[in-house]
């Protein structure tokens, strides 16, 4: 696979659909929001999408709204929460063409049960809605905060699973259309977000294996989030080790060495990731102080600038 080493985030910003995936708790949502902000600053029209009702992004932009959108979060950035129900209304209605049918059929409790029973159908509906948005808004960059690893894998694997079992018919056709978009590296990119922890890196390696090798989806970038910077060179470390037992110095030396341990650990895990996944890796650092609700997102977007320039 050909990967441009330069222009990490601008590479992503040139797509029409960018999905961020990774283990729960690594900050996917913040990274997706920061990237949207970064791309909007560069003149892209961005639509930020969450999948199924966490509705966290408005809060990260300092907004208090509690519905599913769509709404404007900042200049050039709109937001929406993709839900099964809404996907059914939009995408389902497109397939069925008219509203009366929708009412008569899909608003029935029984039929909603059916939708839960059909494997992967709710995933397909959500993705279908997404693909529909991408197709009908050609000038817009769609940034998706995908669900955490396990569920995210299920979401992205759903089209393949359906294509493997249903071999013809209307479902086959619409799912092929979705799969074509997802697998097209010119229009779509997947970014894997990790933190420098063992479980996160293990899951990223597994996810890469599954998405890239098995499903042939365009995983193009790794983003290491929440890193700490605390460089201690070898001579300094040795000196500090030697005064570790002195009562007056012990607490401070303890701090410095403990932090060093954690930073070294982060780097070791990231090295394992680099060894297993031949993709460019962007490094984003932990935002410790937040003056306001929107600060982490703003500061991460600034870091994206320097990550871009540093390359």
């Amino acid at each position: 696979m050909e990967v441009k080493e330069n222009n990490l985030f601008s590479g992503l910003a040139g797509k029409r659909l960018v999905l961020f995936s990774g283990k729960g708790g690594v900050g996917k949502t913040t990274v997706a929001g920061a990237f949207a902000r970064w791309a909007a600053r560069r003149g892209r029209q961005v639509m930020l999408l969450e999948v199924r009702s966490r509705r966290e992004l408005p809060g990260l932009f300092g907004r208090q709204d509690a519905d599913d959108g769509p709404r404007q979060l900042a200049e050039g950035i709109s937001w929406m929460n993709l839900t099964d129900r809404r996907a059914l209304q939009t995408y389902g209605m497109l397939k069925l063409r008219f509203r009366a049918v929708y009412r008569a059929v899909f608003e029935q409790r029984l039929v909603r049960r059916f939708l839960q029973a059909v494997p992967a159908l709710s995933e397909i509906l959500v993705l279908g809605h997404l693909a529909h948005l991408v197709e009908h808004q050609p000038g817009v960059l769609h940034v998706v905060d995908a669900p955490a690893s396990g569920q995210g894998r299920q979401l992205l694997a759903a089209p393949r699973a359906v294509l493997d079992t249903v071999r013809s018919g209307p479902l086959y056709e619409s799912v092929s259309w979705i799969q074509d978009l997802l697998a097209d590296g010119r229009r779509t990119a997947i970014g894997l977000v990790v933190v420098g922890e063992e479980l996160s890196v293990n899951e990223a390696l597994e996810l890469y294996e599954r998405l890239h090798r098995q499903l042939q989806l365009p995983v193009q970038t790794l983003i290491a989030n929440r890193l700490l910077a605390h460089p201690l060179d070898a001579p300094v470390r040795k000196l500090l080790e030697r005064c570790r037992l002195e009562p007056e110095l012990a607490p401070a030396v303890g701090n410095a060495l403990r932090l060093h341990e954690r930073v070294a650990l982060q780097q070791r895990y990231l090295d394992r990731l680099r060894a297993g996944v031949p993709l460019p890796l962007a490094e984003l650092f932990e935002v410790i102080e937040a003056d306001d609700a929107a600060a982490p997102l703003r500061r991460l977007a600034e870091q994206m600038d320097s990550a871009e320039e540093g390359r």
Partner: protein
Amino acid sequence: MNRVLDNLCRTSQVLFTVGPGGVGKTTLAAVLGLQAALSGRRTLVMTVDPALRLADALGLGKVRPGRRVTISGRRLERHGLQLRAGLEMVMLDTGRSLAAAVSRQVASRKLQRRIVEHPFFQRMCEDLAGAREYAAMEELYHRLQRGEHDLVVVDTPPANHALDFFDAPEKVLQVLDRRAWRWLMRPALLAGSVGRRTLDFSSGYIVRTLSRFTGMKFLAELASFVNLFAGALEGLRQRAEHLRQIMRSDRSAFVLVAVPEHHPAEQALRLGRRLAAREMTPRLLVVNRCQPPAGALPGSPGWQEGLVRRLVAEEGAGEAAARRAVVALERGHRLQRRLALRDRRRLAALERQAEGRFPLATVALLEQDVHDIAGLEQIRRQLFAPAEARSAPAGREES
């Protein structure tokens, strides 16, 4: 020592760890299991996490789903721990658990095989919303019935799906309810199995419309499965009801897990409120990975110059390196202070928001990630060791 948690480990029959993804639910489940087994209760730790983290947390490496693994007493003795009852772990295998549930409900072997080998069954195991959670419930029920364990610790899926987990029995059974399906599916059933059509306008219309989505073959396949499965349903429904009663009784307890970060904390609180609304109020909120307070810098004025001189004279350091060492101490102190302060602010906010509904317990961030018995034991000591024996610093400074 945390009395609430200690008490739960001694008296509960089922302990659920619940919370958002990536906060250490699995690790805590393993710690609680360890504590219970040390106090003499036969314990099973069960995870439904698709990411298979329990083996990691217990330092067992790769373990095959569905296999029960006994933690050997000798492994623990190396860490100075004396198991007083068996400690086992199991990673859920959805397909196996559901197949076992079917075979417990359906007498005929032939029918069992037809269900389990039905293509829809295979896909249901992987894809049906709540199937994994439902399988976990079945497995849990089965384990409780067998009575081989005094305590089962259940590690639940991340927050968004944790409620699915508790609602799973209801949801899955609704999906497979034949009475409803009969009505909905009739034309498809008849077309598929008998080869003639009846004129049922309303459902025929629905089926026709649905089939524009999926194709008729798919519907017929689904209907034939629901029909096969129907015999097992009543038994499963009764078990689900029984299990729901157990979950709401004193025999079960829920432990919320979070980390001191804004979003996980908020998710955990939301989950706590929603569990409470289902009469499953969490008993405790464990906040994992709190930054320990920063150790103080030397108090004497001019210590920096003193240290540089000493490092040069006594340790043979170059002056530049000695100065860098001083800078490193100051910088490390500042960074640790910022991190610890942030966590204290967040903990205080969490405590306010919890509004006394459940008490908080904190676990300090360890130097290394937890992926072995030694790591589990460090956390166990933070939560359960008598106050004077606590070796790791607490996430909060005592007030």
